[in-house]
């Protein structure tokens, strides 16, 4: 059985007919190579898991005493979220450049659903605050609704790309936000950091290990 890397073939051999096992190996190798045209679940789960762990972790650590997170923690949390968002956008654009057609259109529509979800989330939270909700209620609702938006969009993405790991993680995120709301403020931040951030990091590890099989 030949296991030569097809890339090592000289151009003059390009017209040569490969033996059967080599042909199967070529197909497998190119399928693997084409993975480069899709975003990496490991990277995206990893970066968002880290952002949630650090951001919500900072909020929780500084809000245990007087009930309010410090300004520094808020800045850290926002910076972690923005950094993860920038990495996500750059990574997705880099991986999908030069690909047009059906999946590019689906991907664009899916991408637009994110700001739509978060604009709705901030409007709901604003509405609650306007109606006289306490800071505690606003904080719990903001977290839980954000997690619900992320969770349901992950579920939609999992269906769109037939990625079970993404679907499962989406369900986990939605339930994590709900559990955080039930836990109460400010320990809700700890639930978001550990179950949410930790859950995504665990998801990254699972995807990585399964890809190696």
């Amino acid at each position, binding site marked *: 059985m030949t296991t030569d890397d097809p890339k090592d*073939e000289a151009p003059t051999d390009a017209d*040569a007919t490969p033996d059967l096992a080599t042909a199967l190996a070529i197909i497998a190798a190119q399928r693997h190579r084409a993975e480069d045209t899709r975003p990496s679940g490991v990277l995206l789960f990893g970066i968002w898991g880290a952002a949630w762990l650090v951001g919500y972790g900072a909020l929780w650590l500084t809000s245990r005493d007087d009930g309010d997170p410090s300004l520094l923690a808020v800045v850290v949390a926002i910076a972690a979220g923005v950094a993860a968002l920038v990495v996500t956008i750059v990574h997705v654009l880099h991986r999908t450049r030069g*690909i047009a057609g059906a999946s590019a259109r689906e991907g664009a529509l899916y991408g637009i659903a994110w700001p739509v979800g978060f604009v709705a989330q901030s409007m709901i939270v604003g509405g609650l605050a306007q109606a006289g909700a306490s800071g505690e209620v606003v904080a719990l609702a903001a977290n839980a609704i954000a997690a619900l938006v992320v969770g349901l969009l992950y579920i939609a993405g999992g269906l769109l790309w037939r990625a079970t790991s993404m679907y499962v993680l989406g369900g986990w995120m939605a339930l994590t936000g709900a559990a955080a709301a039930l836990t109460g403020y400010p320990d809700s931040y700890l639930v978001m950091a550990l179950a949410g951030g930790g859950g995504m990091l665990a998801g990254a590890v699972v995807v990585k290990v399964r890809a190696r099989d």
Partner: protein
Amino acid sequence: MTDVELDPVIHAQARLRVVATLASLGSHDRIAFPRLQKLLDMTAGNLSTHLRRLEEADYVLITKTHEGRTPATYVELTLAGRLAFETYTQSLRVLLGGAS
């Protein structure tokens, strides 16, 4: 032995790599020529030659378009190409299985 035959258009080192790569994209997806070239590590001339052969067989569709002022060439596997690749892969498996 079975009387399975391998499609000669696909059963050549370079074209198999091209078709396998295109088949890995979603159906109805097009890929820009330079990106495809990068995924294959082939020279532009070499890739063009093989694409022409695949186009003659109606296995790929080549679209020339403009992105702003820059001309751009996109390549996609046709339905016939996708079916031919699936048949080819199945034939390979049958032949390999039948050999044992």
